[in-house]
């Protein structure tokens, strides 16, 4: 106590507000164009048409079947492309890192993945229409090779759940490759040698060491892929023209004109999305921290 009295500076570091002046433009920008718009949606979802506080919008979110369906469809597509893209992306990353393929293939794949993971929206939709649409290249190829007409003899439709999922996969698995390749590089050769030295077979090494070490990374990346697909709008809109009622398309319709006849419900729908995205980002960063501890 006596010490504190003698040396007040050391006990409470004075808040030096001048230092914070340097970051004010950034915070101002973030508040104006990121925080305020988000708060507006949150506030809106707790407001009724008369401008009073209500939680009716939130409750209605869980009662309106069409909204629940939209969320559910979005979640299914995102999960399917996250898991499918995650597994496929992992196998690809594996094949060019520890899988024994020649080195040049690795840099080719990484470059291509950088491009493909950024290739989305309208051009991607058009590319898939040219590939798997009714008159698409692969559709014709399958017809010529196997005599199967995808659109008449199977239930396949590019503008449906599986069609959109296949299209999303085009940017999903490259993203997985980009995240997993460094993680696979992080597997030390010595771990494999130590395991072998202690009597383990290759399978045992993968099951007991490599896979458990990579698991947080794999799961975390899949969650990231989930969020990536969940928030996507342009690709789905360009491909299906709004016919497939995923949540982003429903929100888009609500922005264009109040199709729900209740602005508050529209805001609640948007907030629900933000909540799901936030949960997945938290899951991702938690798993990422775990994996960094191991793969340092």
């Amino acid at each position, binding site marked *: 106590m006596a010490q504190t009295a003698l040396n007040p500076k050391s006990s409470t570091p004075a808040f030096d507000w001048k230092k914070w002046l340097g970051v004010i433009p950034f915070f101002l920008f973030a508040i104006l164009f990121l925080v305020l718009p988000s708060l507006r949606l949150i506030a809106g979802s707790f407001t009724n048409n008369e401008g009073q506080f209500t939680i009716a919008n939130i409750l209605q979110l869980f009662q309106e079947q069409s909204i629940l369906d939209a969320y559910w469809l979005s979640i299914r597509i995102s999960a399917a492309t996250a898991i499918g893209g995650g597994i496929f992306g992992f196998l690809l990353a594996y094949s060019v890192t520890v899988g024994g393929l020649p080195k040049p293939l690795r840099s080719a794949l990484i470059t291509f993945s950088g491009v493909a993971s950024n290739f989305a929206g309208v051009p991607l939709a058009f590319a898939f229409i040219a590939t798997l649409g009714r008159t698409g290249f692969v559709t014709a190829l399958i017809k010529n090779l196997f005599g199967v007409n995808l659109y008449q003899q199977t239930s396949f439709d590019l503008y449906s759940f599986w069609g959109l999922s296949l299209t999303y996969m085009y940017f999903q698995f490259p993203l997985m490759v980009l995240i997993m390749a460094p993680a696979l590089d992080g597997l*030390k050769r010595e771990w494999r*040698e*130590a395991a*072998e*030295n*202690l009597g383990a077979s290759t399978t*045992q090494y993968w099951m007991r060491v490599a896979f458990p070490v990579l698991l947080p990374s794999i799961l975390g990346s899949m969650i990231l892929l989930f969020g990536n697909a969940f928030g996507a709008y342009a690709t789905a809109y360009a491909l299906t023209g709004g016919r497939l009622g995923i949540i982003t398309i429903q929100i888009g319709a609500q922005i264009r004109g109040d199709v729900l006849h209740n602005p508050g419900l529209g805001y609640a729908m948007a907030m629900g999305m933000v909540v799901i995205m936030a949960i997945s980002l938290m899951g991702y960063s938690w798993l990422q921290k775990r994996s960094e*501890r*191991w*793969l340092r």
Partner: protein
Amino acid sequence: MSYLSISHVTKKFGDTVVVDDFNLDIEKGEFVSFLGPSGCGKTTTLRMVAGFEIPTSGKILLNGADITDKAPNQRNVGMIFQSYALFPNMTVAQNIGFGLRIRKEPEATVKQRVDEMVSLINLEKHANKYPYQLSGGQQQRVSLARALANRPQVLLLDEPLSALDAKIRVSLRAEIRAIQKSLGITAIFVTHDQEEALSISDRIVVMNTGVMEQVGTPFEIYNFPTTVFAANFVGSLNNSSAEVVDPANSLISIDGVQFESAVDLKQRRKGDKVRVAIRPERLSFASEQKKANVVDATIENVTFLGSVVRIQVKIGQTKFNMDTFNNPFLELPKIGSMEQVTCSREAVLVLDE
């Protein structure tokens, strides 16, 4: 028949010969070090014993069985890596029990053995910690315990101390040696640090560019190096070219200054060029009684190194280092002054030029 026998082992990567005709017999319970600079083939030799590399030619026999081509996971030799190589997803106890669980030992046996190993390395308090929560020295001890838990036939240590701080390096090296002795386990220790090799080993193999230079006890390696490389790599050394003056009496001359050696020079002829090596601590100022090998020297420089004072003297045209132990009453010679310097006949090593 020896316990571990490496005979005529050669390893090539493409056209480069990394290990050339390596021959060594190691007895059970022996602690052998492979000493040499990086790229001398010592690690490759060790990895061939572990099974991570297959010799291009030659044989490796362990306890009577030919293991030359055997897969690493069939050998039961314990390996310790420079980077510890602990499995990051397992606790200390799980790491140590890994090999036993792979062998499908009953859980009770595993647990008992793990406890035994954890107390052997004095890490009882840390058994449930993960590797990233341990210091480097602790991690390397875990790695030692993990290798020993399997009761390996040979323990292979690949520069296990190189990544550690100087202090921990010294204490851990004593610990490794003590554990090795108490278990009576055969060990091969790869290092580039001559002090480490000298302090820990029963025998040392000095290697250079894939070739064995000399094999011997630390005492032999230090005091009687047989090649210029071994002499230079182990300990600090003065060496100079010289000429044989009188083979019968083992007299040589460095720039006209004569020295008498204990080495038998009868195989050489007068006028032969040789290399003479003298350890700095074997040189001293001449006291009056001594008569042999007393030469004039100019004091060039005096460097204080703590326990030792290093004096640079010039004999003939060649500069020599001379080490004397420090004591508070030491009178340091003046630079530029002329003194008489001497060494015993045994200190004068004669090697091929």
